[in-house]
């Protein structure tokens, strides 16, 4: 019974999170009431177009951007209520990998020092111990520790830099990693290597991942469940296979339809004239997707759709879900 209860508690529970930015005298509604859970050992993919708030959500989870309201429960503890030392301690268990691997490494520092830095911040005083841990993670991500430790970031390609970033994120043995577009700056042939590496590391270190990306196929490749975001709100969340096979939210449908398929027999569907996303400074009333949605009616502008279960485990926030 006890074990059941432990398993049922998600490692990450984001509850009605609201994040806003000030822009002059205007307000950017970046994340407007998002709730989601990530179970221990799960990968949750988070997709959406630029400006939908997916990166802001990732940063708000780590408290790099403080929320206006709502809670972020990690392993049962509310990160939004934490400050100072308590938050720093908690951050050792939660790491972040960024999109641009070259920009996220200090160009003047040697790889060995870059990867050891989190250990120093965490107070690992024993230099031999640090060296040992750095050696282990560099080897784990497929780099030769003796060869790379003394070198500088500019001596490495984008793919190798991303390996170094992954090593740095693993060195403190975290439980949870937010991956923010970790492969979108990489070439196709390198992208596959890094996606495989992330999967390997996840299995080996028992990680839980929040995987943020704009590419649906990339997200599907690594995610157990996928959440789709549009203009600060969650449209749909569900098991990857199910969501991709039977999207319920028209926006998920549009995204799937818009992906160019590398098969000449698949004639690209003439894109539905759907315009562009409105500004998050003045998001539409009701359903935020309604201005581009072929199914929208009066109810969609009057009433914000709640996430409802449309199939087992699959939730969509839509008044007129796809059949």
């Amino acid at each position, binding site marked *: 019974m006890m074990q059941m209860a432990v398993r049922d508690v998600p490692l990450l529970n984001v509850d009605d999170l609201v994040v806003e930015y000030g822009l002059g005298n205007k307000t950017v509604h970046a994340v407007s009431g998002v709730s989601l859970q990530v179970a221990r050992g799960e990968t949750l993919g988070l997709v959406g*177009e*630029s400006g939908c708030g997916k990166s802001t959500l990732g940063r708000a989870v780590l408290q790099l951007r403080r929320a206006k309201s709502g809670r972020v429960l990690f392993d049962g503890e509310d990160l939004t209520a934490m400050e100072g030392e308590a938050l720093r301690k908690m951050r050792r268990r939660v790491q972040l990998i960024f999109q641009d691997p070259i920009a996220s490494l200090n160009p003047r520092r040697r790889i060995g020092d870059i990867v050891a830095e989190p250990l120093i911040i965490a107070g690992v005083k024993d230099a031999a111990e640090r060296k040992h841990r750095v050696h282990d993670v560099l080897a784990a991500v497929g780099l030769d520790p003796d060869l790379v430790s003394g070198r500088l970031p500019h001596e490495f*390609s984008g*793919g190798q830099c991303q390996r170094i970033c992954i090593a740095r994120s693993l060195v403190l043995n975290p439980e949870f990693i937010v991956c923010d577009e970790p492969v979108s700056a990489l*070439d*196709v*042939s*390198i*992208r*596959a*290597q890094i*996606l*495989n590496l992330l*999967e390997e590391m996840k299995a080996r270190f028992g990680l839980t991942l929040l995987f943020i990306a*704009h*590419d*649906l*196929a*990339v997200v*599907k*490749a*690594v*995610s*157990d469940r996928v959440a789709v975001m549009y203009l600060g709100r969650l449209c749909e969340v569900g098991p*990857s*296979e199910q969501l*991709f096979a039977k999207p319920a939210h028209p926006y998920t449908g*549009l*995204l*799937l*339809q*818009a*992906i*160019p*398929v*590398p*098969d*000449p*027999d*698949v*004639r*690209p569907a*003439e*894109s539905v*004239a*759907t315009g*562009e*996303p409105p500004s998050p400074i003045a998001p539409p009333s009701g359903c935020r997707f309604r201005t581009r949605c072929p199914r929208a009616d009066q109810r969609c502008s009057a009433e914000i759709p709640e996430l409802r279960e449309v199939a087992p485990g699959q939730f969509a926030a839509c008044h007129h879900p796809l059949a």
Partner: protein
Amino acid sequence: MPLLTIEDVAVELPTPRGNLRAVDRVDLSLEAGRTLGIVGESGCGKTMLSRAVLQLLPKKAKLTGRVMFDGVDLVRLDSERLRQLRGRDLAVVFQDPMTSLNPVLTIGTQLMETIQEHLELDVAAARARSIELLAAVGIPAPEQRLAQYPHQCSGGMRQRIAIAIALSCEPKLLIADEPTTALDVTIQAQILDLLAREQRRRHMAMIIITHDLGVVAGRADEVAVMYAGRVVERAPTPALFKRMHMPYTEALLAAIPKLETAPHTPLPAISGRPPDPTRPLKGCSFAPRCRYAGARCHEAKPELKAAEMPDHLYACFHPIPVTEEVGA
């Protein structure tokens, strides 16, 4: 006669580490009204090749070979004639619409400047044509847009404006260099559709340069795959995807995550990375990463040539046999 013929074009760039061979003896041709896709990863030379066609290479670059466009060799053309040609018969759309538009000039000024430079139209006629063009590329309220600046438009709108400028003088050839890479996926589909529609309507030849095989699959008549400065396979689009011969093409297609694949399926990644372009390999550039490579591949460079089909060229000593349908 093809509209564009690229003959034995090579581009070398001097670097502190020695000469970098960005484009290595490329031959390509394109008929009016047709679309050629050039696909490859970063550093494969696809952009340098397009710059060679446009004669927009860096000053230090050394170009050899011929670029025959509409009967004239662009390589030997004087700068004044080139300037007349570019923007009129030869247009380009770049990846980043923010940097290709001038931030301090209104959209109207930029459109009308191009139109009046190349066509003999007065201000009123140029303005009317600008409005017409903006409407054609799907910009709502085009008259109001003329007075706006690029920063007042979204990325997708800016790319539409860049396309409107490129189309303004009815070019014979449009080069689109990663036209949708900076855009979101729903906007990407709209822009690709727009390009295809305008191309058909104007019977224009088009070169789409991209790293994404998905972008060219349904939209190019012919595809050239580049690797380490060379074209390694070139074929009509269906043949390239269905009966590819070059192991690099196969590996590139396999490495793309597919929507149909179940989650957590390991991707067939290509090991290693492209060779250092300042240290050319003696043999096939892909050999160190190729699972079919034999001793000969490391010793000699395979020529790009046709075998079974006259229009299907590949550069490989151990091509993938055609007996079975590969891919997908």
